[in-house]
């Protein structure tokens, strides 16, 4: 009962409804789309806002409380591809390079999903550790590197056609726009502390939820354009894109509890584990494993897992956490 109420509350939030509106825009072939600089501007804003807030939180509690769960997050991110790969390779009969590519996406994370989850927790007055943004920051890259290594081992081609080297992928994964902004804002926030927060709060905190709603409209459009590819990816990936997040989400919650997080923080670690990257991972994978089929990894992460998490997943991971913590 309760869980249905929670899901309904989430579905009727402005953020999720605007996401749905974006899906509809794409499906009805409305000419609505955000111009690239607006999309980029919103991304920059959201990443800095969430990073800065996380940094301020770290300054408050001290690194001592953060390092263990952050390490757990990194390890979890690096491990997820290791069981995801065989599931795809042998369960889904995908080629080695496609399995490695998809595994990288599901080990990595979606910042927007994380942000939507913090929003949801706030809306239902569920407290959470603000410094959880640190987990987001450290969890983006490891899986990408593991996935690239898996894919390179599997293909062993040489020459330009085999794509950029592992080193280049590492640079992309570590210095790409999103991770740079997130980590940078985190450090800035940690250096500023509360005094700095007070100055920028009316811009980075107060209007945040509204900006997120606006942004999810565009994400709905982008995800909606990929819905047509659902036929191409087949029923296996469709099921995979929903079941794997549930498994990983539960695992993430459990890791969170093990490493001493509260209910809210564990939920967020669950959300991160469950989420799949659709910006950083594709960019690195496209460069490093150009033979992998983008339709497969983009459709599953962007058109299946992302909408699932935004709508149903987030309340479910919280419910799992509640069960585990009760």
């Amino acid at each position, binding site marked *: 009962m309760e869980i249905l109420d929670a899901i309904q509350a989430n579905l009727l939030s402005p953020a999720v409804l605007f996401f749905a509106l974006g899906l509809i825009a794409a499906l009805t072939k409305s000419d609505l789309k*955000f111009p*690239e600089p607006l999309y*980029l501007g919103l991304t920059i804003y959201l990443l800095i806002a969430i990073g800065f807030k996380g940094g301020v939180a770290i300054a408050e509690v001290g690194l001592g409380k953060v390092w263990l769960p952050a390490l757990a997050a990194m390890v979890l991110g690096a491990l997820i591809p290791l069981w995801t790969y065989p599931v795809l390779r042998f369960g889904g009969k995908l080629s080695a390079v496609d399995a490695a590519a998809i595994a990288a996406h599901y080990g990595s994370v979606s910042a927007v999903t994380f942000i939507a989850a913090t929003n949801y927790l706030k809306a239902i007055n569920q407290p959470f550790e603000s410094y959880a943004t640190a987990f987001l920051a450290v969890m983006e890259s490891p899986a990408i590197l593991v996935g690239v290594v898996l894919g390179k081992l599997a293909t062993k081609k040489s020459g*330009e*056609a085999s794509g950029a080297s592992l080193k280049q992928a590492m640079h992309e994964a570590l210095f790409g726009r999103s991770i740079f902004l997130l980590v940078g804002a985190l450090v800035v926030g940690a250096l500023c502390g509360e005094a700095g927060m007070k100055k920028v709060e009316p811009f980075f905190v107060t209007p945040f939820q509204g900006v997120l709603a606006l942004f999810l409209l565009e994400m709905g459009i982008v995800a909606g*354009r990929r819905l047509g590819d659902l036929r191409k990816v087949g029923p296996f990936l469709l099921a995979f894109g929903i079941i794997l997040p549930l498994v990983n989400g539960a695992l993430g919650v459990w890791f969170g509890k093990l490493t001493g997080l509260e209910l809210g923080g564990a939920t967020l670690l669950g959300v991160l584990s469950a989420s799949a990257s659709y910006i950083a991972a594709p960019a690195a994978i496209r460069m490093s494993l*150009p033979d992998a089929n983008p339709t497969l990894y983009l459709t599953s992460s962007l058109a299946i897992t992302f909408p699932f998490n935004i709508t149903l997943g987030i309340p479910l991971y919280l419910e799992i956490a509640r069960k585990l913590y009760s």
Partner: protein
Amino acid sequence: MTTHAMKLVTIVCEAYAKAVVTKLLRDIGAHGYTLFAVEGDGSRGRREADIPEFTNIQVEVIVPPEVATALLTRLEKEFFPCYGMIAFESDVRVLRPNKF
């Protein structure tokens, strides 16, 4: 004023290929290039220009004929199989031949 024959090679490709394509241009000896974001439609479907990572770019590079041939050869062999792209060359006349 005397003009000199050069080749303009134009590449339209998915934005993901930006780093590898511009690296190729440097490797092959081009002295510069020009680049901008474009929308496109082709065999791999429409590519809207709203997310930088999912968009197309158009790269234009002026090179001597032999470099153009080398460039197109490598594009055909190494890039066409992996990336959504088209490439074509055309004749142009420039003023300072040693600049290119």
